[in-house]
Structure formats: C-alpha cells, structure tokens
C-alpha cells in the first residue's frame, strides 16, 4: 500500500514551518537530523504512514523553512512545541533522528504533557560536534556512512537533494550548535519520564558508542536496541526493521518488550 505524502505549511506566530504529512492513526512527529528532511525517495515515511499519522517538519533554517526568529536551540524547541500543538492537537510520539535528538530530549524535558513516548534514533546530542560537521570526503563515502550498503529507497535521492542535505548540515550545525556539547541537556536528561526507545547503529562511523550511554544511564524508562551492522541514518539504512521497531514501540508501549508474534 502506498501512502500519499503531502507537503504543507504551518504558521506558528507568523513563522512558516514547512512539513510533510502522511497516513492516519496515532501521531508520530519525526525530528530530522543535521541534513534536514530526508530525501523524498526514502521509503520509511510512507511505511510508517500505513498505520500512523506521520508529521515531518523541516525545522527553522532547514529546507524550505526560514530560520525566522529562532536564534538558539531552545528557540527551536519552543517553536516545535507550538508546532506540535497546532498539527497534532494532543500528545504525540516523538521520533528524533541524529541531530534531532537534542530537540526531542528538550521537548520531553520541558513539555512532557505533549509527549506520549520518545524514540531516539542514532541520537547525536552528545556526539562530538566535529564528527557530524566534518566535510565528507566524497559523495559515495558520505552515502555509505549515512545509509550503509542496503538502504531502503522508493527512489534514489537526486543530486539536488544531496546538495540540500550538505547545505543544511553546513549551515545549521554551527548555527544551532549547543553550548558545551549539550552539557545543560545532560544534567536534565533524568527528568525525562516518558517511555524512551534508544536505537543504536552498531556500524555508525559518526556517533561513537560512548555517546549513547548518557541516555540510558539517565533516563529510567529507556530501552536500548542495538541494530547490528547498521549505518547512521537508521530510518533509511535499516528501513523495514527500523519501521517495525518504531511502530511496535508506538503501538504497544511497555508491551514492546514482550514477544507476542
């Protein structure tokens, strides 16, 4: 079943936020990584949309969303909280990929009333900033680092999308770089009480294993799953398996741990 993905705009205090929307059901808000919204040929959004209402905003400064009044990471968090209120009208399941994790964690710390559960997918909040910002040696290498050997594409990314991803990362990693490696978030991570799923890629050249430990050590409700031989951009690199895990977690809550197949 192919689920239509619609392009929409939300007006948040006069700030136009571009987003994609698909499917119906429980609302999942997907917070993208440093490259911005994933290429349109990525199959995961359509797959998630088969059973869920999926919303994928381009955060301020990314893709077609102007940076607007946002100057800091916390400004982006405030804008995203309002965005969730407007497009979901209730609690949502947050899925935060890579550099989206800092936003996702802050939303769970500051606005728990808006969050049903949190999925941190190869989260980069405590990864060395340079590992994410380093210029890729070449397009093929960066694609392999991000997507691995067997990415799940409905259609491969275009050259324009590749340039957009690179521009997004180059501009926004520094623009919204967190002070002291998100040290302020680290001390408040333990305030997250929503059920949290931490998905780690075992063959991720960008996020060291040690950078995954703080989430599990601080968040009492955190479950960690290692995705074997997986590359960094898990929704694309491990498309089908990733969608299954996220859907299962969203659908079954704490019963996620119990095999009921």
């Amino acid at each position, binding site marked *: 079943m192919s689920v239509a993905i619609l392009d929409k705009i939300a007006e948040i205090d006069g700030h136009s936020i571009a987003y994609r929307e698909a499917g119906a059901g429980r609302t999942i808000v997907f917070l993208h990584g440093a490259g911005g919204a994933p290429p349109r040929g990525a199959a995961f959004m359509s797959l998630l949309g088969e059973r869920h209402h999926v919303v994928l905003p381009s955060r301020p400064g990314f893709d077609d969303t102007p940076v607007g009044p946002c100057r800091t990471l916390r400004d982006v968090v405030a804008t995203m909280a309002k965005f969730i209120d407007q497009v979901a009208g209730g609690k949502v399941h947050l899925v935060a990929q890579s550099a989206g994790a800092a936003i996702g964690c802050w939303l769970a710390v500051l606005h728990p009333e808006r969050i049903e559960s949190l999925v941190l997918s190869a989260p980069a909040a405590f990864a060395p900033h340079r590992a994410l910002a380093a210029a890729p040696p070449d397009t093929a290498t960066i694609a392999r680092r991000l997507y691995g050997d067997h990415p799940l594409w409905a259609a491969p990314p275009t050259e324009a999308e590749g340039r957009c991803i690179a521009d997004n990362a180059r501009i926004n990693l520094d623009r919204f770089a967190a002070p002291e490696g998100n040290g302020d978030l680290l001390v408040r991570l333990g305030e997250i009480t929503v059920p949290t799923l931490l998905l780690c890629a075992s063959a991720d050249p960008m996020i060291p294993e040690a950078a995954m430990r703080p989430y599990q050590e601080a968040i009492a409700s955190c*479950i*960690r*799953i*290692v995705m074997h031989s997986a590359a960094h951009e898990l929704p694309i690199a491990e498309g089908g398996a990733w969608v299954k895990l996220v859907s299962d977690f969203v659908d079954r809550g704490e019963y996620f741990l119990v*095999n009921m197949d």
Partner: protein
Amino acid sequence: MKFSVFNGMPYGRVNVPGHRWPVPNQYFDPAQAKRAVANCLTEVELEDELGFDWIACAEHHYSPFNLAPNVAVLASALTQRVKRAKIAILGALIPLTGNPVRVAEEFAMIDNLSGGRLIAGLLRGAPYEYMVYNVNPKESRSRFEEAWDLIYRAWTDTLPFGWEGRHFHYRHVSIWPRPIQQPTPPIYMSGSSKESGEFAARKRVGLGLAFTNLPLAAEAARYYRAKCAEHGWQPTPEQIIYQLPVHVGETDEAAHAAVRPMYEHSALTGGIVDANRLVATAGFFGQGDAKLIARFSDLEADEPRSVAEAIDRGTVLCGGPRSVVAQVKRLRDEIGCGVLNLIFDRSGAPDKKLRSIELFAKEVMPEARGL
C-alpha cells in the same frame, strides 16, 4: 609452546554396517556410553596432573566420535575434575545455534565455575554440521559474524540492551554471570578460510587451525598475520592453535605400527565425506577459497595413505619421543603456532593411548616447551 589435549568424550568403536553419517543411534549402547563418560573424566584428571596446559572439548553432532553436542555441558563437568589446566572449548558452533545469548551465558557460567580458566572458541564448524540443524550454508558467514558480535557484546556491555540483526532478535539482554576474566576470556575462532582469517584479525582474536594440513595451515597463519598487521597488531604465538592427532610410542617403529591401520583404512566414513562435499559446494566457503572447496569436495582423496605421508603433511605427530619433539618443532617453525591441540586416540587401543599421553607429557613436553 603450550599443549592442549582434546577430549571430546569419544564413544569408542561402533560396528555399523556401511559408512554412514549420521550414524544411526540404534547402535547406541548405554553401557558403552557409561564407560565412555567414565574414561573421559578419568583421562582429563590424568592429563591435568601430567601438566598439559589446556583440556579441550568441542561441539560435534550425530556421531560417536564426540559425545558433546552441547559442549557447555561437557565443559562444566570438566571444570569440576580439572583443577589446574585451562578449560578450552574449541569450540561452540555459533552459526548453528538459534540463540547466541545462550552461548554467552553458558560460556560465562563455565568461566565462573572454573575460576576464570575458560578459553573461548567461537567457531563456524565443519561443512557437514550445517545439515544438523538445517541451517543454510550460504548464511554461515553472516550468522557467524552476527552471533560473534552479539556474544561479545553480551559479555562486555554493562547496560541492558536489545538486539536487532538479520538473524537474531532480542528486546533485553543482560547476562548474569558475566565472565570472571575481564573483559572476556581469551577468544579463538577457526581460520582456515581467508574470510575467517581477516575477521579474526579485525576482531583481534586468536586463530584455530584444525582438520587441515601443514602447508594449508602455514598459508592460513601467514594470511592471518598479514591481516593482523594491516589492522595494526601482531598476534602472539599462543594466539595460533594447530590441532592434530598424535601417538607417541617407546620407539618410532612401535608408534608407527600402532597407528598404521588408521591409514590403511580411511578414518573418514563415506557418509561424512558426502555430507562435507554437499555443504562445501553449496555456498559454505567464499569466492576466494577455491582450494578449500576442492579439498572438501573430495576429502578421501586428500587423506594421507601412510604414516610417513601423514607425518610429512603435518596431519599427525607420530613416533618415539625424540622424533615427536622434532615434528613439533617443524610445526612451530612453519606455522608459527604456540599451542598444539592434541588428539590422542589414534591407536584405537586404550592402554596404548594412555601410555602415549604419558610419554608425551613426560618426554616430549619438557623438550618442546621452550620451542
């Protein structure tokens, strides 16, 4: 040089018409099995007292050759009889099990039961083993590598984790006990193929060479060391194990006479030769292993036809003590192995076997230790 005795709890002779594998278990005699268990446990005590460095066992299936389809069960028994030597599981066939976490748990238990004396062999197994649990040999490599990573993580990761792989899926792993030896017991894997040698080098673990011969083993060890260098390290001699049968007699003539029947009539049954051929040619080996595919396609043709030929090819140690010391030296020099895993039941006669063990311990080991 270190010396390991392989004791897989052999059942002894079975008079089965024809050469079949699997060996039909209608020929299983409980009384003989009781004797086999008692012999094994008595022998390992003797081997421990005689100063062998390791007592080794391994997982094999559907044959009286080795009564340890679950090698952890045998190894746990050994921990209670062997007081000094290391307990070497060489090894568990991890692509075959559907549950690598169980392997991690069992090995960790054995390390605890032995007070930190486990040597952990994580192997792919011989080709024919893939018929045992109906595992596609084409998946052998990827199942092995994933199971290896999962077992290693189960031993070393100190926070609960789940696992989502191609072959194995868990939502919670947090084993108790962890191994006594930290971060892990010494790990070995089989390395006759190039892919295995490269994997062992990448993971910085030891290499075991078994069911092979001196030229092939020397080539595999060279390849492994070259790959280790590429990965920025060099293995110690103790990280290369070579396994082979041995028989020591009072003289060369006596020793050769004791094992000669083994070479006049192939030790391999037709059934196991066929099973190895089928699996070896059905995707078990990688593209770069044409020699291994050819060898396992016709193992009988590869069998030495005389004791002298077997010694020359390094597939047996046989002779009086002085000759065996020289043969050990040759293996050490040409393969670079620092551990020999010795199979002592080549003569088929229990009294000769025990004498061979004693002669090796008292007259070969003291001379060969410093090699």
